[in-house]
């Protein structure tokens, strides 16, 4: 469990980081908290030639609460967001999800944007981004662009971020008046990778359910809120089958679908209750 050789650059400026990425392309990896990356390096699943460390770029360490959005800089850790005073009122869904992300030790180093870039299909923060319809801000030497969650989240461990880009910020839509949010996760032990994670949003006459842990990336469905219970049950069942899920040693695909059917309804109901 020793990583293969790589060069390490601790960047003092955004320009330096972007130049290194432009120079090394797919051979470079950005590191901020390193909570997934270091384990993967030690297990030699990755073999980058350069690690570009952006952790000391203070300009990326911020939480910006603007009118409709909470924008979180690339080096802001999960622990910082967890203790941000506005979290419960502005991002109630994220507030409910954060305790499920690993353990407090990993949250002390792990970053929001790092988790989004890593794109583990079971991760909580990508699921919240998808369920809320958030955005990410990508920068390279060539350009700056903004992608919505759907455009960004391409698949398993795969995003639309180009090799020369850094995700400089994530933007989570702030809670809206009259909307309710709920989160539920099932894992074998607290802090384990989710077997199923569910994010519910209710409001504006719609109900929305995001599901992690089944498909290659978080998936979201939206329905009219006045759907009858049996129609919602059918819709959840269809959604579960579309997500399909896989068997692994912790749970069967069937169990994962079952949890979408059973807990999906509960999460939606809880979101509805919070909305009223």
């Amino acid at each position, binding site marked *: 469990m020793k990583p293969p050789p790589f060069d390490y650059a601790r960047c003092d400026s955004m320009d330096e980081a972007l130049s290194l990425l432009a120079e090394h392309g797919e051979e470079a990896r950005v590191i901020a908290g390193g909570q997934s990356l270091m384990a993967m390096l030690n297990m030699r699943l990755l073999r980058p030639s350069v690690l570009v460390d952006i952790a000391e770029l203070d300009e990326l360490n911020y939480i910006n609460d603007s009118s409709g959005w909470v924008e979180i800089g690339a080096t802001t850790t999960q622990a910082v967001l967890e203790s941000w005073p506005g979290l419960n009122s502005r991002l109630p869904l994220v507030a409910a999800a954060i305790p499920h992300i690993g353990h407090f030790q990993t949250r002390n180093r792990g970053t929001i944007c790092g988790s989004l870039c890593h794109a583990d299909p079971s991760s909580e923060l990508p699921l919240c981004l998808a369920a809320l319809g958030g955005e990410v801000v990508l920068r390279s030497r060539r350009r700056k662009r903004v992608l919505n969650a759907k455009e960004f989240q391409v698949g398993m461990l795969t995003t639309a971020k180009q090799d020369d880009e850094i995700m400089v910020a994530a933007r989570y839509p702030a809670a809206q008046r009259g909307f309710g949010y709920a989160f539920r996760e099932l894992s074998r032990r607290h802090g384990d990778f989710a077997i199923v994670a569910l994010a519910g949003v209710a409001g504006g006459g719609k109900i929305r359910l995001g599901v992690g842990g089944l498909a290659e990336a978080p998936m979201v469905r939206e329905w009219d809120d006045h759907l009858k219970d049996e129609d919602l049950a059918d819709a959840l069942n269809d959604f579960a089958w579309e997500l399909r899920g896989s*068997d692994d040693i*912790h749970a069967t695909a069937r169990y994962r679908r079952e949890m979408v059917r059973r807990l999906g309804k509960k999460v939606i109901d809880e979101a509805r209750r919070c909305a009223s």
Partner: protein
Amino acid sequence: MSLEQSSATTAKARVPYVGQRVLRVENPPLLKGRGQFIDDLPVKTGTLHAAFLRSPHAHAEIVSIDTSAARARPGVRAVVTGQDIAALTDPLIVGFATAMEYRGIAVDRVRYVGEPVAVVCASDRYLAEDALDDIRVEYRPLPAIVDPVAAAGPNAPVLHPGVGSNVLSYREFRHGDTAKAFAEAKRQHEITISYPRNSITPMEGYAVIAEHLATGGYDVYSNFQGPFSLHPVMARALRVPGSQLRHRSPANSGGSFGSKLALFPYIVVLCIAARIAGRPVKWIEDRLEHLAAASSAPNRVTRIAAAYDDAGVVGALRLTHWDDHGAYLRAPMPAPIYRMHGLSTNAYGIKNVDVFTHILVTNKCPTGAVRGFGGPQLYFAVERMMHAIAVELGLDPLEIIHRNLIPEGSFPYRTPAGALIDSGDYQRVIAETVREGKLDELKATRERARREGRLYGIGYAVAVEPSQSNMGYISMLKTGIERERAGQKDGAVACATINIDPLGAISVVGDSVPQGQGHQTALAQIVADQLGVRIEDVVVNLETDTQKDGWSIAAGNYSCRFAPAAASAVHIAAVRLREKLARIAASSLNVPADRVDFGGGKVFARDNPANAQSLHRVAGQAHWSPAGLPDGMAPGLRESVTWSAPELTATTANDEINTSLAYGFGFDFCGVEIDRETGEIRIDKYVTSHDCGTILNPGLADGQIHGSFAAAIGASLYEEFAYADDGSFLSGTFADYLVATAPEMPKLNVLHPVQSPSPFTRLGAKGIAEGNQYSTPVCLANAVADALGRSDITIPLKPARVLEWITPDEPAAARATARSETQTAQGAASMLNGKGSVVVPASPEEVWAGLLDETRLKAALPGCRELKRVGENAFKAVVFLGVGPVRGQFAADVFLCDLDEPRSAVLKGNLSGALGATSGTGHLSLTPVKEGCRLDYNYDVHVSGRVAMIAGRMLDGAARHLIGAFFRDFARTLARTLPQQAPGFSWSDRLRRLIGMKR
């Protein structure tokens, strides 16, 4: 109560330390980070660091190994293969003659994922691991077998051709007249249980520093735990006398729970590596290595039948075990099954028992000791059976337990299989536990829960807890006649030395090789009591050195050996020194030696404590004035004791064996609630009580109970070394091998209602470290059985498994569309299969030609860097593949067969690389459609090695993604090479858009 209490200096006998909750003397260095673990020890200049290349295959022949590129890398001093080891060693022997050969490293065949194949010795671990990638091994995969019952069957692939069968040993033991009891019984019941593979994983893994000396001998530092019966096994394998294999263990070892027994094969391999490299070699095992390839308890299938009457009194048991030891049997395996043999009837007065044991091999990691050592497997079967009998008769399971318990007042009690249970009062333990633990309240809780429609159950389990193993039981592998020929084995020798120096300072050495249990504290308590000094005046050093210390084959830390054996030996030595000091002091105190007492650092006349001498003055006399000692007394103050309990007798001709010296007793009950929606289990209440005889230190005892309970919660709910049917290993990290951690722990109520001292151990103490390993898994399983009214309960109790017990059927999709995805996949963990289709804008003939065309195939294979034809329809390729950033280079062998031009073909291939190995079969069919040709595919892929070990939860999705990408790329590539279509002919454009060439 703590150390302060001991500072009294009056010459009076005070409250003995033994029995008190004395704080651990081990704690200060550990809590300050000043422990001395192997990796902290200095090494000699030039010491190399080892890294192991390990098999990605469960079963394969090694066709060739090319180490030249690895040897040429910077910093690499030697690359050692199994052939190199085989040339310089003999196989590691086991307790009976067998054609199975085991050397700790694969020689011409690999038999489990993670098996060592080569060792790189380099100037640091990083360079050593870098070089592993440059070792080229060509494997020829063989079919693997993982199911123990199937492995014993006639059609299973055989792991060791020389043996000719996967069953290395089969023995039938008959105690009493079981056949008659079954023939006459009114009732019979049979169940089959399957106990999973698990271990208890220590914080510190294996660690070895090995040196080949100029004398030809070997000098080894390791955290090997014993039993030291393995020392002769290692010396024989290394072809040196035992005196030339010096083994030392450090002051601290970071836990073991049995696992560090199985590091001895690594000692042999690394000794030879050091010899070949000409330098000392150090190896620190990492977590991936530990989980895949260190050790495991044997998994076991047991068919158990009981003959009983209408009252539920059991007349006989019949047990047939399939005990799965993985790829090799290594000494002292299969000890767990025989260690428990005498206790095949657990705590019950059952008179007749037959035991049939298959000791067998499968394509899994070899086994070793794990806390519980055969007990969890056995008692899971026996206690599930007692529960099942209660269900059959409609009685309370505790009532069935009561009706069958060994009667009070019948100790020492000889079980039919030979155990001599030394002492106990099982009825009283249960009665007091039921009362103190408030079982009646728990029953009311269950009633209430059930009335509310909740799933709530109560479970019970009893367990006899053996301690200090009889070295004789391993010869159970042999028949009575074979044993007679080979010479009997019995006893269990313990060694200890106490020294008192000229200033009266006391030091103790022993053979217990602790890994954190607090042995130093307990031994200091015993010695301080005998010699009347403060506990801090006794220094206990439990490092071992086989060239300098007293040891015998039973030395080490296993099978609850400490309290009965190590503590007894130290106690005997302390008593002898006390008697010697009393004789020395008697003349100057002018009292008879038997009227001399010890306390407050003084030796004094019992009847007149003012008549006293300091201990150091009396001790000094033995060193400074040997001539002044009583007649015939040896000079100095050093007592070395070598002790073996006479009750540990040899196996009888009829295979009865007193497998252990002392036997404690445990009784547990619990209440669990199961969530109907999710299948999750909540332990509402857990009560455990233990009678372990004299308790040396309640703090240490409770620490062991809580630790054992935590490990048992892991075994019951979470932990399993999972293997796919093809032998792929699927739980290679702590994200998949789930250890119970603090948040998972329910509240544990610990009771010690009764203390029945052992008449056979010096202090009356019995082992206590393993009790909940025995009782907790089956107690929880019985509670789940009670909650669900179900008999077939398998652990670990995963929510997905439990939910299927509650809700067997899944609702179908409401709308057909939801299920009719173009591609579906189902993965049984590492065996993945799925199907899909793509439409190619070309005729079937054109597609067919593309499949067989080197250039087009190369262009179509994603990540293909080289491709050459090596035979008719056979190709070799180098491909760069992966998902997201996880990518690696693989060597691929691909060939096409069953060709039915241009309709169908079968594509077979193997890939291997640093990330692992896969083999797969794809069925392709080509159907002409309006738009060109539809290519349907379905696949079966086996994935093995690193990726399967550490990323199992993503494998299915990754395979689907990669295979889908392969055929999409293939379709795209073909489309790109198509001749230009005539103007106005628009379907190909439409199709190109469809398959993603244009957005």
